């Protein structure tokens, strides 16, 4: 199985391309199921800054082609220009970096790990994430946890929501007497609401298509929930609007925002769009009294902060390299590849030697057909003999027997270079446990 990663992110693609690939969950599952026909596994990571597909496939080239076709179908040929690809170990490094927030727009922001975890769970639910990707994700989560606890990268972290609040302070002189409207009660909306509250906003309204979620969030952060139907009357009263809904089309357009302008008497309106695809049409910003920002604008804004964290990012990069190396080694052990390969090599060498000897002893009196039969018999004996140990070594479950079996095989057949196989304590079970820990850490 080979791991590949194909995708595009804020580093390579403009927002207009990214939003075309930002699929609702149900459609992500459809795509995943198309891509992940056994034994291929697929993971679809989609945030407002990236859309990436991770594949574990026996034939990387074929799997890659199918992903490229999917992306072209969704985002048009233009999307292909912005794609990047990583294979094998590089794909692992990328996954670890993404989960560890080292590839984020806001370096070190904590949200991304939760988003990758959601993607992972969605993949598991859809049946597209199985053994190989489960192990890779688990290792990525535990690596992310190390990055968070062992470097200061996340400490002074400004999330997108925090950056949005900072931007608001350039338009308004404090949020104390301002009316704040949070549209969309998802994770992003929650973060935004918390930051706005922290910045002193007292009049905070939350609206959401499902009122219950708005109510839950409002109760949690200390605001008031309003039904989605009141959106535009809320807008008329608001000074700051933060939206992060999953709406596939813009909620706010120049026309419908402009319509509430009369009643506002020129009162400025600050709007931040944290959603991809965008909730606020770009035209809205051309209204004189509206200051509208989308995720790309925020990226530009936080770009300066990135330098300050470059050093921590370097430390984190070393951690990632360590974790990837560990994972690769564990995988090699788990799959017993060296043992199996050597065992097969040894057996085939013996069989070849014996076949040669036999053929030599029988002399030239053999027909071509007889010669081939003897060769086939040699290979068949090897295959039959190794079939059972091979499948047993490969089928080792997560109980951690892999090392024991591989070690035993190495010892039994005298494949002595496998000493380290039995000594390493890091079993797949240990990795999953670490991942579970990392995951609970993210959920706060």
């Amino acid at each position, binding site marked *: 199985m080979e791991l590949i990663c194909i995708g595009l992110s804020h580093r390579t693609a403009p927002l207009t391309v990214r939003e075309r690939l930002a699929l609702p969950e149900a459609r992500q599952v459809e795509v995943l199921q198309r891509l992940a026909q056994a034994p291929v596994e697929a993971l679809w990571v989609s945030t407002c800054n990236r859309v990436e597909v991770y594949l574990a496939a026996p034939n990387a080239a074929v799997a890659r082609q199918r992903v490229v076709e999917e992306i072209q179908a969704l985002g048009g040929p233009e999307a292909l220009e912005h794609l990047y690809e990583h294979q094998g170990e590089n794909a692992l490094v990328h996954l670890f970096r993404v989960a560890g927030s080292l590839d984020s727009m806001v370096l070190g922001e904590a949200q991304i790990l939760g988003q990758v975890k959601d993607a992972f769970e969605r993949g598991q639910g859809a049946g597209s994430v199985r053994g190989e990707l489960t192990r890779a994700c688990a290792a990525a989560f535990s690596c992310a946890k190390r990055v968070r606890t062992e470097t200061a990268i996340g400490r002074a972290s400004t999330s997108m929501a925090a950056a949005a609040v900072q931007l608001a302070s350039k338009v*308004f002189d404090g949020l104390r007497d301002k009316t704040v409207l949070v549209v969309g009660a998802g994770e992003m909306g929650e973060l935004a609401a918390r930051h706005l509250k922290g910045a002193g906003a007292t009049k905070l309204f939350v609206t959401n298509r499902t009122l219950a979620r708005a109510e839950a969030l409002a109760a949690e952060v200390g605001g008031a929930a309003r039904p989605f139907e009141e959106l535009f009357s809320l807008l008329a009263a608001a000074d700051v609007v933060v939206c992060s809904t999953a709406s596939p089309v813009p909620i706010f357009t120049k026309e419908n925002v402009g319509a509430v302008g009369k009643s506002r008497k020129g009162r400025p309106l600050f709007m931040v769009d944290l959603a991809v695809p965008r909730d606020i049409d770009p035209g809205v910003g051309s209204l004189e009294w509206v200051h509208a920002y989308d995720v790309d604008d925020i990226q530009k804004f936080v770009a300066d902060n990135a330098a300050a964290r470059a050093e921590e990012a370097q430390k984190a990069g070393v951690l990632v390299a360590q974790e990837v190396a560990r994972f690769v080694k564990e995988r090699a052990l788990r799959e017993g590849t060296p043992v199996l390969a050597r065992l097969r090599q040894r057996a085939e060498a013996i069989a070849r030697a014996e076949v040669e000897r036999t053929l030599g002893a029988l002399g030239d009196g053999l027909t071509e057909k007889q010669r081939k039969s003897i060769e086939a018999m040699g290979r068949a004996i090897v295959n039959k003999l190794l079939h059972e140990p091979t499948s047993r070594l490969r089928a080792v479950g997560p109980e951690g027997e892999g090392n024991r079996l591989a070690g035993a095989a190495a010892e039994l057949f005298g494949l002595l270079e496998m000493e380290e196989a039995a000594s390493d304590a890091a079993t797949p079970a240990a990795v999953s446990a670490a991942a579970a820990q990392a995951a609970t850490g993210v959920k706060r």
Partner: protein
Amino acid sequence: MSHTLVSLACHAYGIAAVAYLAYLVRQTELLATAGRVLVGGGLALHGVALFELLGAQSGRPVGLAQGFSALAFLLLAIFLALDVRYRRPVIGAFLTPLAVTVLLPGLLLEGGQAPLPPGVRQPLLPLHISLALLGLAAFAVAAGVGVMYILMERQVKAKRFGLLFSRLPSLEFLDTLNRRLVLWGFIALSITLVTGTLFVLTAPGLAWHWDGKSIATVVAWTVFAALVNARIFAGWRGRRVALLTMAGFCLVLVSFLSSYDLTSPAASAMRLP
């Protein structure tokens, strides 16, 4: 004596301007404090000089140089009050250079006083002049703040997150400051206009005529009256208000300059000593 004092004050303002401009680039509290102390010290020296001078002239600045000097003094006094009240030293980076530019031609230029009609020697004259200057200074500060608003709004709209974006105060703050300054300036200008008209109407043998000064003043007053009204009743704010403030300030400046005879050869005698 007073010339030395004003010259010293001008140096203090100049260094303060440098400190505030440096503050714009490198935001350390030390620079802001240095600017504040220098402006305060300069104002003290400047104030003593003006007090001495005007006391000798029955409270009336004579000549363009003195007019500019008094204007610079009031402008910086307003700035210092704002700085103490709001603690936004960044404003200094815009206003101290402006004050120095106002003061310098006063020290260098030669400009005479238009002959004062004899009937206008009234007890209310010092009030008329002080308020006129105060109004002009308030509008000057408002115009400076307007420039800051326009710059900041451009950054906010174009999403350019450069030095100015990170340093300038929020749009709301600048707009509110503009509103207050324009309102106070407008009140001062209105009283100036009323007292001025009163002088002309009550002075024996003085007929009303539309000269450049009265036209510019009335137009400026109309602009600011419209501005104040548009703000209160039509909800005008922000960019267009900032632009109008700048335009209005130019008109008031014309009115101020036309109080002086810039071509008078006698002007040299009235230079600031």
